[in-house]
């Protein structure tokens, strides 16, 4: 999945596979891969982005809402969101909807 272009990734739907759970804490979101037993910590902004990714039909669709929330330009949010999405994909913490590996 890391080979997707930015545009392909923005058009893709991201979701958590069944073996990944997450819980939000005040200053951190903990993402747990139940297959590997590995915990990952996300700062509050990344945690909010993960929530937005889960709720949005595509990665790109999450951008306007997040930009509004944080009062930032969409380009900036899109760049950060793509970076986070690629990081989560590489760690197997999210998959794109058409990924059979889930």
């Amino acid at each position: 999945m890391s080979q997707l272009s930015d545009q392909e990734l923005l058009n893709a739907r991201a979701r958590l596979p069944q073996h990944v759970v997450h819980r939000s804490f005040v200053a951190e979101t903990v993402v747990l891969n139940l297959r590997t037993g590995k915990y990952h910590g996300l700062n509050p902004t990344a945690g909010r982005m993960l929530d937005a990714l889960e709720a949005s039909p595509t990665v790109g669709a999450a951008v306007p809402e997040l930009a509004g929330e944080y009062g930032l330009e969409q380009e900036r949010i899109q760049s950060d969101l793509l970076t986070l999405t690629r990081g989560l994909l590489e760690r197997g913490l999210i998959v794109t909807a058409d990924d059979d590996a889930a």
Partner: protein
Amino acid sequence: MTTPLDGRPGAEGEGRRTAFGIALSIDPRISIPGLGQSTGSDTADRESQIRLDDDGELDRRWQALTAAPTRARELRFGETLLLSVDFAEAAGYLLWTRDFGRVLISPDGLELLCEPDPANEDWASILAAQALPLAATIRGLEVFHASGIVLEDRALLISGPPGAGKSSLAAALVRAGGRLLSDDAVALQLDTDELIAHAGAAMLQLRDVEDRRLSEGERIALGRPTSSSEGKRRYLSDGAADPVPLGGLFLIERSAAEPAIERLEAVDPFALIASTFNLSVRTPARLRRQLDVVSAIASHGLAYRLRVQPGVDATRLAAIVQAQFAVVSR
């Protein structure tokens, strides 16, 4: 061979007991001091059976494995292996501890087959210290490496690194009227939205140097002295406390400042995860539960920082903790 379990009343350790939230049926030849009487209110319906291996059954089961077991945990002092846990899906968890022997815990936690080290008459202490927390974890409870005291019908858990003063503070709180859940490990059960604390073995261990500072009356308040070893004096409480709701988990932090208690609004979840006891059970169900329990502690506002000065008087610290806990746990 199956050891008959007749449940006769009698010596300590016989019959139906409870620890870490699971009901136990114990071979009459095994004595595990400090366990509570089973009241039928344990979280799990079925008893876990603890029995002696009389005829090499443990070895037969382990040697019959067709797949190699995996090393789930080991503890070393330098080059010396002190403890190991091996897991095999077909046979369960094999706990080995130097000088204590082996315990094979079935994959469902319902059977603990014991092969004691015959040279150690105190071998059964490993059951309360390691094997039962492991069995409880397998059976669905989350065990915390913490001292636990019941104050005002709420459980106060005290967690911190080794030598932080957990047992000393627990002993001081018992002297002040608290009831002991355990001085080393307490099980938490997430019941709908409430966290319930279950006692382990109601045994306190105090360093000799600290024990010598106590008056006779203070020692009596701790319970019945049972044994001394490795520079520690053990006291057996009258009985383990009944399960109670969790009132707070206090994380000890060394500080040069005066003792103080502060609610952790933004608790580090990894600090809570690190306070859990068992590292051997890594099943998805357990990992999810561990995260759920930690999340519940944080979302219920039950995590506190307890700042203590090195060498602070435990009796004075207990008075501060007791007063603060009465306020925050309501």
